[in-house]
């Protein structure tokens, strides 16, 4: 029996389209955690995230036969999740926008960081530090949070496909988001 966990995403899609139900289940198990976390980062509600989670995989189940294996399954999955989340915001009249420019516009953080940053990094590597860092990330503008979350699962090229942005813009936005976290975390107020 084929070891499904060793197959690529495209191969699993092909197997499922041929009638192997377990191939679909393997895809669900492979991406369940990252997809759920991404949805939670956007909607901040377990019920809504759960509904969207089911919707995304139901869409995959329904349209798998139409999916063209081009090595872009991950992009498709997160793009579908994003679109469904935007529809959710629209249907619930929520004003969260993932495309607004941040308050700094297009400035790059060229500030010189305070001395002792290495010490700050060591402090943040503790469990408590990581929790505080996550709480700080949660205060960022939605689109910067989304960028940092997507970076956990996708390459820059895949993020560009999901967000329909040029690769250069994605690289710059991601760099800005990391720099902002760095600056905020290094401030005395945070530590």
């Amino acid at each position, binding site marked *: 029996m084929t070891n499904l966990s060793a197959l690529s995403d495209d191969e699993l899609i092909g197997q499922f389209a041929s009638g192997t139900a377990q191939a679909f289940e393997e895809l669900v198990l492979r991406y369940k955690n990252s*997809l759920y976390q991404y949805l*939670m980062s956007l909607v901040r509600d377990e019920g809504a995230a759960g509904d969207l989670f089911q919707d995304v*995989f139901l869409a995959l189940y329904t349209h798998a036969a139409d999916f063209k294996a081009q090595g872009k399954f991950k992009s498709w999955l997160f793009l579908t999740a994003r679109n469904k989340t935007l529809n959710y915001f629209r249907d619930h009249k929520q004003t969260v926008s993932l495309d607004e420019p941040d308050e700094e516009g297009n400035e790059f953080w060229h500030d010189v960081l305070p001395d002792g940053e290495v010490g700050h*990094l060591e402090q943040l590597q503790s469990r408590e530090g*990581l929790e505080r*860092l*996550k709480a700080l*990330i949660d205060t960022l503008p939605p689109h910067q949070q989304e960028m940092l979350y997507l*970076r956990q699962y996708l390459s820059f090229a895949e993020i560009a496909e999901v967000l329909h942005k040029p690769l250069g813009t994605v690289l710059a936005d991601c760099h800005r988001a990391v720099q902002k*976290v760095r600056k905020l975390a290094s401030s005395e107020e945070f530590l």
Partner: protein
Amino acid sequence: MNNEKWESLISQALQAPAAPAQLVEKVFAKTTRRPSWWVRYKMALVGCVTAVVVAVCVGVGMGSRSVPLDNGKLVVYMSQTQQDEYATFSSDLDLFEQEWF
């Protein structure tokens, strides 16, 4: 180099929590583990046929409750009414049966 360390820290801070197991089961229940349409319709069909059979049996059972006419009981009933015109009903019934059966 420091930027890479920060990216690593951010990755650690954003470690994905596990999706709830019941959520995954819901997906499977609606997709790969959902009974096929034939199985679902077969169950509905069996239910309908069973209901029809039960209804027919009940109907037949109710229709067959009529009992043969008990002449003795009829005579007793007629006598109990103490009406003169039924006092000789028993003998009249015997004559009737002799003539026709």
